[in-house]
């Protein structure tokens, strides 16, 4: 059972890291506009799409 002594802190540490990352994301406003983010990744800011030949 001695393994528990470092396994539990390790589990908590990893979970805590995830929690911190999530809280940071919330603070950073990454959950403000889920729909917008979903479509934004489709566009490259600097290189416009090649023109379609019509």
């Amino acid at each position, binding site marked *: *059972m001695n393994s*528990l002594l470092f396994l*539990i802190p390790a*589990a*908590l540490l990893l*979970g*805590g890291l*995830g*929690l911190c990352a*999530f*809280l940071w994301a*919330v*603070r950073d406003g990454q*959950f*403000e*506009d*889920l*729909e*917008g983010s*979903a*479509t*934004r990744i*489709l*566009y490259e*800011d600097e290189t*416009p*799409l090649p*023109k*379609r030949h*019509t």
Partner: protein
Amino acid sequence: MPLDSVTTHCRHCGQPLLGAATERGAFCCQGCAGAYTLIHDLGLDAYYDRRPLDAAAPAATVEEGEGADPLLGLPEAVATAPDGTCLLRLSVDGLHCGACLWLIEAAVTKHHPEVQSARANLTTRCLTLRWTGAPAKAVEYARLVTGLGYRVAPFGAGGTAAVADPAAAQERALLRRMALAGFAAANVMLLSVSVWSGADAMGDATRTLLHWVSALIALPTVAIAGQPFFQSALAALRAGRTNMDVPISVGVLLTTGMSLVMTAHHGEHAYFDGAVMLLFFLLVGRYLDSRSRGRARSAAAHLLALNQAPVTVLGADGLPQILPPARVPLGATVLVAAGERIGVDGTVAEGVSDLDASLVTGETLPLAVAPGAQVFAGMINRTAPLRLTATASGEGTLLAEMVRLLEAAEQGRARHVLLADRIARAYTPVVHLTALATFLAWVFLGGAAWYQALLIAVSVLIITCPCALALAVPAVQVTASGRLMRQGILLKSASALERLAPVDTVVFDKTGTLTLGRPDLLPDPTLTAAELELAATLARASRHPLSRALARAAGPGPVADGVVEVPGGGLRWQGPDGFVRLGSRGFCGVSDAGEGQAGSERPGPELWLARCGHPPRRLRFADRPRRDAAAVVAGLKAQGYRVELLSGDRAVTAQALAADVGIDIVRADARPADKCAHLAALRAQGRRVLMVGDGLNDAAALAAADVSLSPASAVDVTQTAADVVFQGDGLAAVAETLAVARRARTLVRQNLGFTLLYNLCAVPVAIAGLATPFVAAAAMSGSSLAVMANALRLGGKKPRDGGH
């Protein structure tokens, strides 16, 4: 976009080409051509490739009002940071896809290096701009966005445009609490599962260690994540009421406290997992609830913000000045441009024009005004610029009087108690009495030691902690409001769904609700094509609603050159065959007795066409019902609703329309107070009334009904009064809202029934003293998940039939 659609559809907005498209290239209107040029000049043509095929660009409209440009008020809404950075948040109407975001952001940043960031938000339809320089630049940026075809207004209805929304901050706090509770629930459960699975093999010391670690995680979580519930419960208890948060708080605190005592005494059972998991589930429900409600609210506020326009006041120095309507001094001279909404009550000092008074009086006929005439805030100036002398502004206007009537009506509406709160009122005492009875029974009948009996009593409280019960209603509301929102129906009030379900009477207003609120040319077999074409040639030069109706009816064609618009009269044109006049009876020189046919027919707006050598011709118009009005009314009647028409218009007009759409019960000539009285009478008969209306004259009636709907085209006061606001041209939203409300009620009842069943099964187990932490955790999460899954059934389905 394929080539063929380029030639038949507008290159910018994708609408089929009508009108004088040939002169403008492949654009439906000047606005779209301008937007296309702007996009092209900025080098952003990729927009047309990027936007989804089904979502066209917003049709750009040219704003011709020379008077108060609403954008001029923008610099006031700019917040300036100490370091000289300006911040502006704008509501952007017409934002609907990722390409729009990209276009707007790219357009604003392209040639403006001083713009630090431009970030558009698709969810809140808000554009946040940061730049260094003068706040007055805001107008330039806003013009750019309006040039692309979007409508903008300062974000948030009040003057607090730049300040973050408190509701949004609260939502974020809720999300953080939810994350914490989720983290804790997962980790505590990890430890609990090992305790359960190793129950026999595990030594006391190990178990206690695991319990202590659980306590270490659970205690701060309960303290932080439980706050919203504790605060709400305290507030309710202070007010002498109970709500759902009271049993929740009692349950969570008792569970945690008892587990702590158990842990300290090396006990076998600790319920930390149950407590944090309960909090996690509840916070999930509450977060979803707040999110959907907040979005509906912000969408409604967004619609309102677009309609708020400042007023141009002519100052003492002769210079025009832009003021909010409420700050216009009495006696001031107010300029009202053609096409602009009047912001104050007043008398006409100078100018002759036609006013669209439909929002104030319910009349469809444009009202001709001349100097001396009384006008009211909310009317729309149609043909020519006017100068008004303000006689009332702010609180003194007819509009404000309507608002007071509305408030009085709202106070009269019996306070609707939410179903969940009603249940909590009955539930709390029953549960607590059961726990007490369990304790007494174990001590006196069972002969147990008092602390053992206390433990069993507490476990009864834990297992009855209304997790599923608290989720039963919000889970359904979230899915219902989400489903309605996708169809452009915004639920503004939390209790609207519950009040909609028992409705048995639907009362419609006429103008703007059953009808589109705009006139259309009535077919007339005696009218020759040549006459119609001639009239339309003149009419295309004018923005008067009747002219537009005429142009719509005639279809595309040439526009006459040199048409003179005589305000309050009509159009005059020097044609090849002499003067042609198109306008009112008096303007065209037709005497009142000239044509005897008038009396017997349906009255309505009319135009006369007068030419040399021809008898004058009459063109008649009527406000057409919405395209699906008859179908929706028939559908509602088939479902057993009583459908009524309640109109401020004249009886003949109202009855004619009622016959068109199939409504049998008509009340016309109703003033706002009459409308309220009629609704009160209906409610006194025991009917549950849904009022659908859009006019200022309906606002009080909307508040007097049990529940109310209003189209998004309605005036702002009316939208504020309504519980539900729907967007779009059709009335199908009315049927859909009622259908969803009824379905939601069924699901809520199923959920409540299930929860009750669960409690009936679980409570005897707890009373018998058999509720181990494992049983409690399994029962609690199982019932919560079942309730949520049941609620999701509402959202997944396609709109049944009423959608389109």
